[in-house]
Structure formats: C-alpha cells, structure tokens
C-alpha cells in the first residue's frame, strides 16, 4: 500500500505547486514529448510493467474482469506468453497487455462521433458508451488490438486505467492486485513519482514504437519476439495470447 499513499501525496504536491511547476516538470522529465497535447494537462498517467517480475499468473486479468464485469470472451487486460528458441536454448516470458493510453491515439482521430477522447486532466483515453455507435473504426485503428465490442452494450470498450479508481487516488485494479509488483502506475509529470524515475533511469521500451502512437505503457525487460517476426529465420516462436483471437494483430 506504499504506492497508494505516494499517489495521494503526489496529488497534494501538484495542488501546491500548481501549473507552473508541472510544466517545468514536463520540460525536465519528457522534453521530447512536450509538444504532445496530453502532457499539457496537470497529470500525465503512465504505467511501467517490469516483465522480469511477471510470472504470468493472470491475476491482473481476473482483477480487471471483476472490476468491470467484462463479459466472457473479451478482455480489457490480458497476459501473453512468449515461447522461443530450440532446446536447450529456450525461453518463456510473459507480456501483460492493456490499452497503451497513447499520446498520439489514432483511435481518437478516427472516431466519427467523438465518443472516444483524451481526458484533458490526466491523458487517459476513454470511451463514452452513451455516444459510441459501435462502428468498430477505432478497433481497426488501434495497433494493439486493445479495443473490443462489449456484447452487453454493443459499444466499444477498453482499458481506461481504472479512471474511477485513480481519480479517487487509488491505483488501477491490475496494479493493486499484481502479486509480483511488476506493475507501477503514476504521474509522469511528477519527477518524484516511481514511474517517472523508472522511465528516466531504466531501459524502457514500448510496443510497436514504429506506429508512432507514443504509448504511455512502458515495459522493462519485455520480449518483443513475435510469430511474424522473421528476423531470425527458423527460430521457433510461439505466442499464446490467452484470448479467443489466437493470433496477435
């Protein structure tokens, strides 16, 4: 629960120093992203996932299902297993997946109704189920396959960093439940937050960087091997998505 208290004190800190200090912090921590609209808000939520600490236990997927009553067959949060190599040189690693809450979200630019948008105050990308018509355009635009049609509402649904929890100072449900402490959540605009420190000091990577979406979910020690990745001919790579769609898109 240490991380929870730090979230609250962070919010107080932001309140005390106001916008000027925040903007200075933005310039100091992420100068390259200073142009992005998302970072101009007072808070810029991000997540760091340390894949070395993940054991593939699916507790995050289950917590997410319970938090949102996500119907069977669809996932806001899921864990992929990556197996590769030939015996005896083999490895198996785990890749927890969720919406990357990109700073350049293509899902938002293609939405014809404005149902999906970036929250100005914290950069979280949300879907308004009362506006969404379920045209699935954003599902095509997302390079991470993070979006799905919720069968009960017929509208598009996805991870929203547990906005109802984080706006009350709590951590997202998956972070709260992670037994390996592989997930760290916090404010990138606050240089003293754990995520900002990790992003600054660790060799973090993002998924599909070449898509130019500027994800706000960072990985430490993630294996980016993919079945379609033909860089090493003949190398055995198997990805288990643990979703009804057996292949990554």
């Amino acid at each position, binding site marked *: 629960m240490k991380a929870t208290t730090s979230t609250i004190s962070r919010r107080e800190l932001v309140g005390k120093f106001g916008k000027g200090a925040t903007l200075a912090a933005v310039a100091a921590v992420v100068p390259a992203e200073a142009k992005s609209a998302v970072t101009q808000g007072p808070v810029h939520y991000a997540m760091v996932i340390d894949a070395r600490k993940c054991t593939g236990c699916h507790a995050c997927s289950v917590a997410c299902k319970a938090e949102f009553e996500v119907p069977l067959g669809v996932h806001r949060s899921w864990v992929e297993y990556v197996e590769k190599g030939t015996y005896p040189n083999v490895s198996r690693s785990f890749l927890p997946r969720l919406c990357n809450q990109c700073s350049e979200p293509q899902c938002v630019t293609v*939405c*014809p*109704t404005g149902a999906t948008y970036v929250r100005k105050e914290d950069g979280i990308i949300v879907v308004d189920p009362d506006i*969404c018509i*379920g*045209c699935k355009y954003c599902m*095509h635009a997302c390079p991470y396959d993070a979006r799905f049609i*919720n069968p009960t509402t017929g509208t598009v649904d996805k991870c929203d960093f547990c906005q109802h929890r984080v706006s009350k100072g709590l951590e997202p449900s998956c972070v709260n439940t992670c037994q390996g402490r592989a997930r760290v959540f916090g404010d990138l605009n606050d240089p003293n937050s754990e995520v900002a420190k990790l992003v600054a000091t660790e060799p973090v990577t993002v998924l599909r960087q*070449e898509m130019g979406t500027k994800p706000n979910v960072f990985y430490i020690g993630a294996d980016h091997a993919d079945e379609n990745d033909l860089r090493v001919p003949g190398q055995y790579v198997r990805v288990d998505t643990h979703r009804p769609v057996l292949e990554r*898109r």
Partner: protein
Amino acid sequence: MQELHWGLPVIGYLFLAGVGAGAYTVSSSILLRGGGGGFRGDHFNIARYGALLAPLPLILGTGMIIFELGTFQAALAQGDIGLFFRWINLFLTMNLSPMSIGSWILAVCIIASVIYAYTFLAEGSAPDDDNTKLRRGLAWVGVPLGISVAVYTGVLLGAMPARPFWNSPVLALLFLISSLSTGVAGILLMRALFGKHDKAPGDVAVGSGESESRATYLLASSDVLLIGLEILTIVLFILFAQLTIGNVSQAVSVILPGGDLSTLFWGGVVVVGLLIPVLVELRFVIPTLLDHQPYSMPRGVEMAVCAVILLGGFMLRYVVVVAGQMTGPMGI
C-alpha cells in the same frame, strides 16, 4: 486468422455506395456533356438510366452498413429501441474522422441523387422541360459529390497505419476508378434490361437507335479506358506495397501467389472482373474506333459483361476488406 470486425455488410456497402456514386457521377457528366439533351435527347436518355439507378444502391448500401454497427446488433439481441437509432450520433457532430466527413458527404449525396432522380421521373420529362435548371444544377453538384463518396470509401480504409494492407494512398484512387467503372456498368445494365429495343418504330422519345448507340459507344469505350486505368492502379498498388519492406510487403503477400486470398484476387478480381470484360468490350469497341463501323453490342453480351464488371467490383471490395483485416503490423 484474425477476427473480421467488418464483414459482408461493410463489403456490400463499399461496393453499392461505389456503384451509386459512380452512376450519379457518370449520369451527371453525360447530361452536362450533352448540353442537357444532346442530339435528339440520347444523352438525356442515358443520363436518365444513371439518375434513376444511383439512389437505389446508395440507399441500400447505407441501410446495410447499419447492420454492422455494434449498437444495432445489441439492439437486435436485446430489443432496445434506443440502441437501434444510435447511429444518429453520426449526424450530431462533425469532426475530421474520415467516417464523419464521409457520412455527411454520403447523406448530402443521397439527398441530391434522390432529387436528381425525381427531375427525370416527372411526367413527360424531356431535355428542355421545366426541371432543366434544377436538373443541370444537381448534375453540377453530382460530379464532385459522387467522386467524393467514391474517394472517401478508400480514404476510410486507408487512414490507419495499424492496417498496413489498406494504408496506401493508391487505394482511394483504385476505389474511385472501380466506382466509376461499376457505375458505367450499372447504367449499361439498366439500359440493356429496361431500355426499349433499338430502332423501335416511331418512338422518338427513347432516341433513334443510331444516336443512342453512339452514346452507349461513348460509355463502353470509357469503360474500357476505366478498366485499363484500374489495372494500372492495381499494378501500382501491388508494386509499391511489394517494394516496401516490413509491414506493408508482409501484408500484400496475402494476395500475391501463395497467399491465402491469391486465387480470389487473381481469379475473381483480375481475370473475371477486369480482363474478361475488357477483352469482350474491346472486341465491340475496336471496329467502331478504328474502322468507324456502327457500334452495336448484342443485348445478351452487354448484360453479361456488365454483370461480370459489377461482380468484379464486389470481389475487389471483398478481397481488400478481408485482406486488410487478415493482416497487421509485424512484431510487437
């Protein structure tokens, strides 16, 4: 195999909207080219087939696409009346999403094409009747509107780097040319199906056979040109995808020899949809073009060629929509 988020309703919509938009554009161009009537009203008559055809596929296709909406499917499952009409939200806002711009253009195009069709429906409509001004005005609007609808269907798919197969600027051009070509085929098919027999004795309103056959020659020869351009565009589409490395060349390999959709693409789209009709049309166009012989294509052949062109247009949308969803970026 990936999940097909956009299935037959979307494929059918892209095809039908293309036919409707193409027919409206071609009909408007013919009307304007013939100065509202043309010699003995033959341009007017050809334009009428297009004008009466255009709203039907536009409205039918737009009706179909609603079935693909998640909210509509949930409404069917739950019987929730409010969800049935959720698509109204498209018209409560306007933004730079290709789908938003496209919906508005499509709505305007449907309304314009319906009024345009009405100007031809009125009792005793003729090249210089009371509706001429309205008709010509709607024809001037129809050319850019029809082209916009046809282009937008390509831009809609092409806007996303996450779908490398679609993410090509050539796609919009390909859909535009296919749309005009299927529009021409639709008009010729309507004329072959419902037109009075050529040289009907004493029937001046339908146009004497010779001058109307000159107008259909214009259509058929334009169709040869359009199909030629379409083949060139497909070559460019494949060439540039194949010359790229990474996502795009990996994606285009599904329609190249050895890919999952290769037979459907080369057999269905290229041979059946393009090569066979263009060769048959050339057989009838070349004698007129080179030797100035009177143009006449047997009605049965005309129907078959038009049907095959329309089938090819549908297959093109089918292959493109499915191939785009089968493939994605490489790596993670």
